[in-house]
């Protein structure tokens, strides 16, 4: 944890504590933020004229696990394009869109990010996910567990055994050291086991007597019973298809319809990919307005944007049928990896081109969502790394959010016909530094229920990003390039009280924490259910039940968060 640190005279943006550009000192001791420290013996950082924010929190990023590794395997050409040699402090690594483990950590840290959530991990392969997460340095990490096509969950829900579904989900989280419930194309990936898909909320999942609506509602109830820190994290049906914004809205609304709001919440992830109107690819339109209108009118929905960036990247998702469709239209490389009983996965390289009609619409939808949803606390900035583009593009996305001039520069070169069907050219909203601090730190931390992250109050983890950027002098609207450059290379990144980045270079290679949720369901309840489940488990799976869990000693710096369910 190093010695105490005093950050002096920084211009602080800490929205959770209502601090907006105040010049103040921040003291760090023993890895947390404290009221004050003895300056003698402390490392003093002169942050005058610099922007100080909590360390960035990424709510949704595919950085580790089986499908990331398939992505890496698939793309030697992506690696040759971007490599980092070994230095005195850092390991070497490669990869533009699917970086290898070590450089993933370094690149996040260089941008001032300190916490990243792996977006989807199948329980059967979660040991793999943790092995990779262990190898990613510096950042704190966690993994969301995919459950939306899990046979046992689906069976319990279809049999109306919600409490058993909850106990099973609790065990899954505990066994795999997962953080929350991820739902990927509910029911659709199971149908992909037969080469099919499910296209709407009320379509039957083959052989399971259940519909996506029932899966989403059921898991939302489970989430609430278990009292999990994060909401259900949903990748909706029909993702990546024209005219899917209606499914997105119906999925969001089904929660309200079933439960009337309250504690029943839903996070729609990489919403851009499910924010399309227009019935075919040639008539594709932005559906962002409809979604934003709904999100503005309710308070049970949050989203991350899944912004598309014009670059060469690699799409990867548990949504196997989606990747197959993508392959059908691109005819390039395609990897598919079904996971028994649980989910699937697919990987397809893509190139988003601003000259393309569809590419331009996609780019606009993400930004429209971010700009049309009025309350920034409902929005998180993501590119659904690497689906919309690699996470290293965040500073570019920030520049688009903060500057309509930056957006216009892109639109000048983008597909003109596409722009006619978006409202983006007419939006003049520009994010403030507070807005940026919210969508990149405070909101994701809040939505994930990370009480010690995303802010700089006393007791928070000392995860701090300092950028060489004076918000009082720089007008992001016109000087967006300066903002972009500053955010790419943090002047300092402090992780858990340790200075890890100075002037955009990694100076200390530490390992971060492994965060997971330890749901306090009584052991006898779990034991009883597992006794019933075991024969079927071993009939369906190809491994023994006892070899399924991830032992806690596999995790580096295991950091369980204990929650008390209402069971």
């Amino acid at each position, binding site marked *: 944890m190093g010695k105490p640190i005093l950050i002096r005279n920084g211009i602080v943006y800490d929205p959770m504590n209502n601090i907006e550009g105040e010049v103040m000192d921040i003291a760090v001791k023993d890895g947390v933020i404290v009221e004050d420290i003895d300056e003698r013996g402390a490392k003093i950082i002169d942050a005058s004229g610099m922007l100080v924010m909590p360390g960035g929190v990424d709510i949704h990023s595919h950085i580790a696990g089986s499908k990331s590794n398939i992505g890496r395997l*698939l*793309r*030697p*050409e*992506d690696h*040759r394009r971007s490599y980092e040699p070994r230095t005195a402090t850092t390991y070497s690594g490669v990869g533009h869109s699917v970086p290898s483990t070590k450089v993933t950590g370094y690149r996040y840290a260089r941008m001032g990010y300190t916490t990243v959530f792996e977006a989807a991990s199948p329980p059967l392969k979660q040991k793999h996910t943790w092995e990779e997460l262990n190898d990613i340095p510096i950042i704190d990490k966690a993994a969301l567990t995919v459950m939306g096509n899990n046979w046992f969950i689906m069976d319990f829900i279809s049999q109306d055994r919600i409490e058993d579904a909850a106990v099973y989900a609790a065990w899954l989280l505990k066994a795999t050291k997962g953080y929350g419930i991820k739902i990927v194309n509910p029911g659709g990936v199971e149908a992909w086991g037969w080469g099919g898909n499910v296209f709407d909320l009320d379509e039957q999942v083959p052989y399971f007597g259940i519909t996506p609506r029932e899966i989403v509602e059921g898991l939302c109830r489970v989430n609430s019973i278990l009292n999990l820190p994060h909401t259900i994290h949903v990748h909706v049906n029909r993702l990546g298809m024209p005219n899917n914004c209606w499914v997105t809205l119906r999925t969001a609304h089904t929660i309200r319809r079933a439960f009337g709001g309250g504690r029943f919440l839903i996070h729609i992830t990489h919403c851009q990919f499910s924010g399309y109107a227009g019935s075919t690819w040639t008539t594709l339109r932005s559906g962002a307005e409809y979604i934003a209108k709904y999100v503005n009118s309710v308070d049970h929905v949050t989203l991350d944007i899944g912004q598309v960036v014009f670059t060469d990247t690699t799409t990867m998702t548990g949504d196997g049928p989606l990747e197959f469709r993508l392959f059908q239209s691109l005819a*390039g490389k395609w990897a598919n990896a079904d996971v028994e009983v649980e989910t699937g996965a697919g990987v397809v390289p893509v190139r988003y081109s601003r000259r393309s009609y569809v590419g331009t619409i996609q780019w606009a939808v993400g930004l429209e969502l971010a700009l049309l949803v009025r309350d920034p606390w409902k929005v998180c900035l993501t590119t659904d790394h690497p689906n919309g583009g690699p996470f290293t593009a965040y500073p570019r996305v920030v520049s688009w959010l903060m500057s309509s001039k930056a957006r216009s520069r892109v639109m000048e070169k983008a597909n003109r016909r596409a722009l006619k069907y978006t409202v983006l050219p007419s939006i003049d909203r520009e994010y403030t530094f507070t807005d940026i601090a919210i969508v990149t730190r405070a909101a994701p931390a809040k939505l994930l229920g990370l009480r010690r992250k995303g802010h700089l109050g006393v007791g928070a983890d000392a995860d701090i990003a300092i950028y060489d950027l004076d918000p009082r002098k720089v007008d992001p609207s016109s000087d967006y390039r300066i903002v972009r450059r500053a955010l790419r290379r943090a002047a300092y990144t402090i992780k858990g009280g340790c200075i890890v980045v100075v002037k955009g270079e990694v100076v200390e290679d530490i390992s971060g924490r492994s965060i997971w949720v330890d749901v306090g369901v009584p052991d006898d309840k779990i034991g009883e259910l597992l006794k019933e489940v075991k024969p079927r488990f071993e009939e369906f799976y190809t491994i023994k039940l006892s070899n399924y869990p991830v032992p806690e000693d596999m995790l580096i710096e295991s950091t369980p968060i204990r929650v008390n369910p209402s069971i």
Partner: protein
Amino acid sequence: MRILFKPITPFKIPVDLSPITPDNIDGMDISEVRSLQVMVGSKRRRVDEVFSIEVADEGGEEIDIVFMGDFSRARGIGSKMSRGSITVKGSGGVRVGEYMRGGRIVVEGDVDHWLGMAMRGGSIYVKGSAGSYIGAPPKGSSKGMRGGSIVVDGDVGECIGAYMRDGSIEVRGSVGLFPGLRMLGGTIVVYGDCMGRAGARMRDGRVIILGRVGSVLPSFQIEEVRPSVRGVRERLDGPFYVFQGDLSEDGRGRLFISKPSNPELEIFEKFL
């Protein structure tokens, strides 16, 4: 200017020679050339620690590099060069002429795999034999040879001209399997025999084989018999069986196979 590079001791470990190209040396005086750095295994060395260097001819606009000795453990000779010339008096190692855009490389001995990898222009002439994947893109990429010409006097390995889009490859000796794999354009001429599977998955382009072929893939269809065909710089006398394919990938490539060398292909004539 003509500069001679002679290894002080024979290479026992791989040496990356990609920094020693006419493009990089252009404008340097000889002391700068001496202080260039190359990787010898994992160690960075000054060029003059590895080579004895001699300026053979000060005159001439063009830079002419001569490597004297055995370079079979060298990597990347003539990498990305766009002008001037390189002569290897000996064997040449892997990736000779990778990403080459112009100029000329002559190798008097043999070369290993990946000759002219993803080449764009210029010419390569190998007097000995060459390995596999001539002109092909590195693994994972689909951008193969786009221009220039490669001539090999000896035998070559497999998959020559993979993903080739333009330019020409001529082999005086025999070739292994898969000449013109996934080819998209350009011309491959094989004066010797071919082990088989010529033009596998080709979309377009021409593969001409004057010697015997092991077999023709079932996904090719015979089109006609032609008396002669245009080669790279001359007309080649046949007659030739002309096949179209690879139909399993909806390809429109052309395979020209010498009729006199392959009497057993006569059975295809019934389809004409």
